[in-house]
């Protein structure tokens, strides 16, 4: 088959990555100020993965995400203001203030949820893919997960399930070197995670998770394989997590020497390439102002939004009101 390549200009991918970066920085600030309650896990450093993979997806393609999922939601097309308002717990939030960081749902944009349960996305993605096959939509499903989730039985079950039923699922492992605070070599029997694909008879590929062009190209190929051959793929994107596991984690632990992604910022990798290709500084300033204004507006929208009505606490358990 011909290998599809991504066609989006790098300027657009850069703009999207910058939105993820500035959004998460703003979340960190609001969280530190006590304006965002609960637990939060930031996607800082991993932006090229979500942006590169989602570049090849349609709104009707489904993704499952993780506890570190704001970046996936943004990259899939959810409204930054609605996500921010959700993190603030407001009525205007993506799910009306009842979900928060780890429970963002946006079916209209193909977001089957960020998720508070590690490794739960693989099975859900298989189901989305099965629905696409049954209904003949030619849509695909992507299950994002961290390296920690590859240890979990649910992930292994889902990979085998997708392979044996020939489902158009792309498993994207964002290997940032840590399962919470446990380093890769201490939690995984084999650290070349892409090699696990072989056990399930699917294509496995490792990619530089700091290079959005590389991720987008690998993803486009996997998405093409899923659409045309109903074949699943495992992509391991090697990346780096700038903050601790959660906001508040002091991260008194460091990546092992030689971690390829360390010290390579996805915005710098793209920025350098674009500058070489002649994009001028004025463009970078313009994009920075535009993105910063968008994020500031999202924060302002969230802050000024009303809290949900307390009576909403019992809404939407069942399709219709029933005696319980």
């Amino acid at each position, binding site marked *: 088959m011909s290998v599809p390549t991504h066609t989006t200009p790098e300027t657009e991918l850069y703009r999207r990555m910058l939105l993820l970066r500035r959004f998460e920085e703003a979340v960190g600030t609001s969280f530190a100020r006590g304006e965002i309650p609960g637990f939060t896990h930031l996607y800082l450093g991993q932006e090229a993965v979500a942006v590169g993979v989602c570049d090849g997806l349609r709104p009707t393609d489904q993704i499952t995400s993780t506890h570190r999922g704001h970046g996936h939601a943004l990259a899939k097309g959810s409204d930054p203001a609605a996500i921010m308002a959700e993190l603030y717990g407001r009525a205007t939030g993506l799910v009306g203030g009842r979900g928060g960081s780890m*429970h963002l749902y946006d079916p209209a944009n193909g977001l089957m949820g960020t998720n508070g*349960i590690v490794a*739960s996305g693989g099975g859900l993605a298989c189901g989305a893919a099965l629905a696409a096959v049954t209904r003949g939509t030619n849509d695909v499903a992507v299950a994002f997960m961290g390296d920690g989730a590859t240890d979990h039985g649910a992930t292994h079950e889902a990979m085998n399930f997708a392979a044996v039923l020939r489902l158009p699922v792309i498993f994207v492992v964002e290997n940032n070197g840590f399962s919470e605070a446990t380093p890769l070599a201490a939690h995984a029997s084999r650290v070349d995670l892409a090699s696990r694909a072989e056990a399930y008879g699917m294509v496995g590929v490792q990619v530089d998770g700091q290079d959005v062009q590389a991720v987008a190209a690998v993803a486009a190929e996997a998405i093409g394989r899923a659409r045309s051959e109903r074949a699943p793929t495992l992509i391991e994107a090697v990346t780096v997590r700038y903050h601790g596991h959660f906001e508040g984690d002091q991260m008194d632990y460091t990546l092992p020497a030689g971690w390829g992604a360390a010290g390579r910022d996805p915005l710098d990798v793209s920025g350098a390439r674009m500058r070489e290709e002649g994009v001028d500084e004025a463009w970078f300033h313009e994009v920075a102002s535009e993105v910063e204004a968008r994020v500031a507006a999202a924060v302002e929208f969230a802050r000024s939004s009303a809290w949900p009505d307390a009576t909403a606490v019992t809404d939407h358990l069942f399709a219709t009101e029933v005696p319980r």
Partner: protein
Amino acid sequence: MNKVRVQRHTLRDAVNSAIHTALAQHDDVIVMGEDMAGGAGMSSYDETGSIGGVFAVTQGLVGRFGRGRVIDTPLAETALMGAAVGAAACGLRPIVELMFIDFLGTCLDPIMNQGSRLRYMSNGATRVPLVVRTTYGAGLAAGPHHSGSYYGMLAHLPGIKIVVPANANDARDVFAACVDDDDIVFFFENTAMYSKKVAVTEPRTLRLGEADVKRSGTDVTLVAVGAMVGPALEAAEELAGRGTDAEVIDPISVVPLDLATILSSVRRTGRLVVVDEDNPHCSIAQDIISRVTSEAFRDLRAAPVHVAPPHVPVPYGPVLESAYLPGAPDIVAAVDRVLA
């Protein structure tokens, strides 16, 4: 005079026919699980002769509806249930089989943390029209890993509907409502009923949340769940012979629970016995007793009694298993207590 030939069927026949109807009526219904076709494609089986699951409930479906809609899955319940929830959230109406409810532990997360609360967490934007067919119940010497009931465990989780039909006819009559429902419905099939032939009755429309009064009476209210409805009716017959008129209520669905019908009966009889073969602690039966006691305390003329197995796993051998499972004599004894 012509002799009327009574048609008889089993729970297996009833559910098989109900699934046929669901697949024929809805393009978005699929059937998925271990061995749902089973053996199809092997030289020893043609498509219609596939085994159709360990209890043969799905036999014949693949021949009529094809591999695209009758899907054999790996023995991997976490992936199966996760995929079922995901497919339901993306527009299908899957009917999946969890071979025994005892296997719930191998697939609880997709049910507990995902499917049951997707609608709530998504602020109503996602529906999960999923039927999970499963088997339950002691009585076949199937031992501690194949005889449990556990609907009480599921009832503890918000967002799951639970149907426990008492016989083949009710199973046939309520199945369509489960398939049409836009929420997760667990449909409990009693293993001991699969091969038991009963007379076919006229179809009726049963709805979730509407209890069925199986026998009207004035002296005591017997609420019995699923396979315990049979022994409760037997007990009621015996009690009638002794001058006690028992009302027997079958909730049909334990979630949603038709508490109104139970309360109205207890307000008339003043006495309540709840019969349930699920583990007794923190159970549906205890919940019914607690709610009736709170709502109708002044109408009760005796403390309610719970007829249940002991709070232990289901044992294997016939002596231990029959010591475990409640029967009509236990129910009669319980009624004697509330009448004393």
